[in-house]
């Protein structure tokens, strides 16, 4: 597949959505405000329509301002309602943004003839058509949506670079941030305002709900894998941008919605992280569990050998066969445990007889002493 300028326009626009979404999403997810992103991205629709009704502008700074104000209003109104004690945070959010979205959709419906804004586009966006609306800069044609997104992306990056430390402390410990004079509340408001602005800029390309996918899913992916804020953000950007490419390829192959395919592709990174992440992945958990089990079995083997050392039945008990017959281990498992113990030099094998080495004996003695202490402690507490 040759990449022509059309592909490049679509891909770069998508990548810009992914990068901005990852930057803001990382902090929103860390702060536990992912659903505020949902509220904002819905509420901006009302702002866009109202700005158009008041000024007649379909795009530009007025629309961005109107939309950002509407997004902030949704979040702040929900906060005020939940603080009034009349309802929970969840109900307040679920009450405010559908109402604003409904009003926006209704106004679009009523003005459909003049507004040229399809309500399906509001929800789904049409990244496939970004090339319809271009602007010439440096003698090259650029999609307007892409240029807007680039500006917004720089704004986001600048804000986060300047307030990196403040945002980080505010996200993890808002009490400490307040004590240090970092104004966590203002930091939170700034984040929400930028989310609203980014949502407006992404709106034409991917629509309301798909923007949410790029805001949240890559950030969650990063959080599953990385342990630092910077790491989470880099991984989120990476996963978002790769999803844009993969989703575009898939959309061309199967002839489906481009924006939808890109958003679905973010799930790929999430599933990969869930399975393979060294921190919290399924595979890592399995490996850890196996390692812990092997450790416990080796300890059991040592105790077993120590118990029968220098007894009349030493020859019979201290063999791999006894592990299978007397301890009920499976043959394969018994061999694995014996090999592991041999590897660590805690036992030695002569013919078929297993014997503790000095190191192994010391370990077994320590384990026995631990058990004794525990028994003693339990007896003293009166329940053993």
């Amino acid at each position, binding site marked *: 597949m040759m990449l022509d300028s059309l592909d490049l326009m679509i891909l770069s626009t998508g990548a810009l959505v992914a990068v901005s979404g990852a930057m803001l999403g990382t902090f929103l*997810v860390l702060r*536990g*405000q*992912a*659903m505020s*992103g*949902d509220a904002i991205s*819905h509420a901006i629709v009302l702002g866009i329509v109202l700005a158009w009704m008041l000024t007649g502008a379909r795009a530009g700074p007025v629309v961005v301002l109107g939309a950002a104000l509407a997004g902030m209003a949704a979040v702040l109104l929900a906060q005020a*309602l939940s603080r*009034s004690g*009349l*309802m*929970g945070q*969840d*109900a307040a*959010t*679920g*009450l405010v943004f*559908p*109402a604003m*979205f*409904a*009003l926006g*959709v*209704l106004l679009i*419906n*009523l003005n*459909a003839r003049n507004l040229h804004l399809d*309500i*399906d586009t509001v*929800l*789904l966006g049409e990244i496939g058509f970004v090339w319809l609306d271009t602007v010439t800069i440096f003698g090259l044609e650029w999609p307007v949506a892409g240029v807007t997104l680039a500006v917004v992306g720089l704004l986001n990056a600048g804000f986060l670079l300047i307030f990196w430390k403040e945002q980080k402390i505010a996200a993890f410990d808002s009490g400490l941030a307040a004590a240090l004079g970092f104004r966590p509340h203002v930091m939170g408001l700034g984040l929400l305002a930028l989310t609203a602005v980014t949502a407006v800029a992404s709106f034409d390309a991917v629509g309301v*709900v*798909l923007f*949410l*996918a790029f*805001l*949240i*899913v890559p*950030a*969650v992916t990063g*959080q*599953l894998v990385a342990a630092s804020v910077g790491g989470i953000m880099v991984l989120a950007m990476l996963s978002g941008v790769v999803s844009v490419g993969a989703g575009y390829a898939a959309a061309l192959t*199967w*002839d*489906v*919605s481009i*924006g*939808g*395919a890109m*958003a*679905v592709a*973010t*799930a790929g990174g*999430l599933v990969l992280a*869930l399975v393979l992440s060294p921190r*919290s992945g399924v595979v890592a958990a399995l490996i850890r569990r196996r390692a812990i089990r092997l450790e416990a079995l080796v300890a059991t083997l040592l105790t077993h050998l120590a118990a029968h050392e220098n007894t009349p039945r030493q020859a019979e008990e201290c063999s791999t066969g006894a592990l299978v017959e007397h301890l009920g281990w499976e043959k394969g498992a018994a061999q694995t445990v014996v090999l592991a113990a041999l590897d660590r030099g805690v036992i030695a094998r002569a013919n078929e007889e297993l014997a503790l080495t000095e190191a192994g004996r010391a370990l077994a003695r320590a384990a026995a002493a631990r058990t004794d202490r525990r028994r003693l402690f339990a007896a003293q507490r009166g329940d053993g």
Partner: protein
Amino acid sequence: MLNPTLITVILAASMIGALAGVLGSFLVLRGQSLLGDVISHAALPGVVGGFLASGGRGFVAILAGALISGALAGLVVQLLRRGAGVKADAALGTVLSLFFAAGVVLLSVAQLRSGAAGLTVFLFGQAASVLRADLMPMALVAGLVLGGVVLLWKEFHLISFDREAAQAQGLPVSLLETVLTVLIAVAIVLGLALAGVVLMVAMLIAPAVAARQWVRGLMPMVLLAAVFGILAGAAGAVISAQGHGVATGPVMVLCATALTAVSLLLAPERGIVARWTRQRRARRSLHGRQVLAALQGLSQAHDDPSYASAEGMLNAYLGASSQPVLDRLKGRGFIRQAAKMEPELGKDRRWELTDAGVLHLENKDETQ
């Protein structure tokens, strides 16, 4: 004006409104409102999948598909939270956006088939898309859901208000929660054709929040929420039928939100206006007490029970103009203007406490 189509739509919208009001009450009380949002968004791939599988707009197939994907979404939220330790809101947002995106992809596949034009009504809801033949199965399902709620009323009541007590009584709490979530999912799915996947959550939450303003107790709240749901649904259906091409969902939601806004403002006890008035009255009565206490304090400081304080002195003492408060206190008989004293000190009025004022000041229980 009341043609058969409109009657069908009103009936369907009322049914949906009642069902959403009843089950939304449980969502709101359990603090899970946004789960409703996730389930309704996540129903989209199921709606389109049901369409693709059945090869047409079969009511049952679409309903079943929506239910399956909605329930699956609920399950994935649980998995992400419990299994991978993802925070609640992030898990909700992840599942919502991914399922919806999958729905968008499927929608673009389905649009190549014939008869798919009707599918986009599920985004925002179109009352006209409900056919007369759909009413009976709709009523049947709604009846089953309501029957389930009635049957498990005591259990749902307990897990909504006191989960620990329910566990201590040996109730299968997780199972009951799953059943409740499935019933909620059914209610959501049933309403999708009317309210749309994006806005259905408001039909669940708004009537419940509104009802909670007026009544106490689960039973009255659920019943009133059902009434509000019916009102919003029917009004939304009728109003949206007036304009051509106006989606029903937004109008229904705006009706429900208007009801909620009125309830939030005007409800007698929990209403914002009532609260504000109470606070204002309390503050005013506090001001009155302050002035009375100042008068008493000044007379005690002068060892003169009938000492009359000049208004200017009171103003300086309280740091504010006390004139309106003094007039009010005089009107209620707590203070009286003292006789003028020679030599006249300026034009200040002079005030002393009446017996009623002393009594009022001593009687601390009385707040009026």
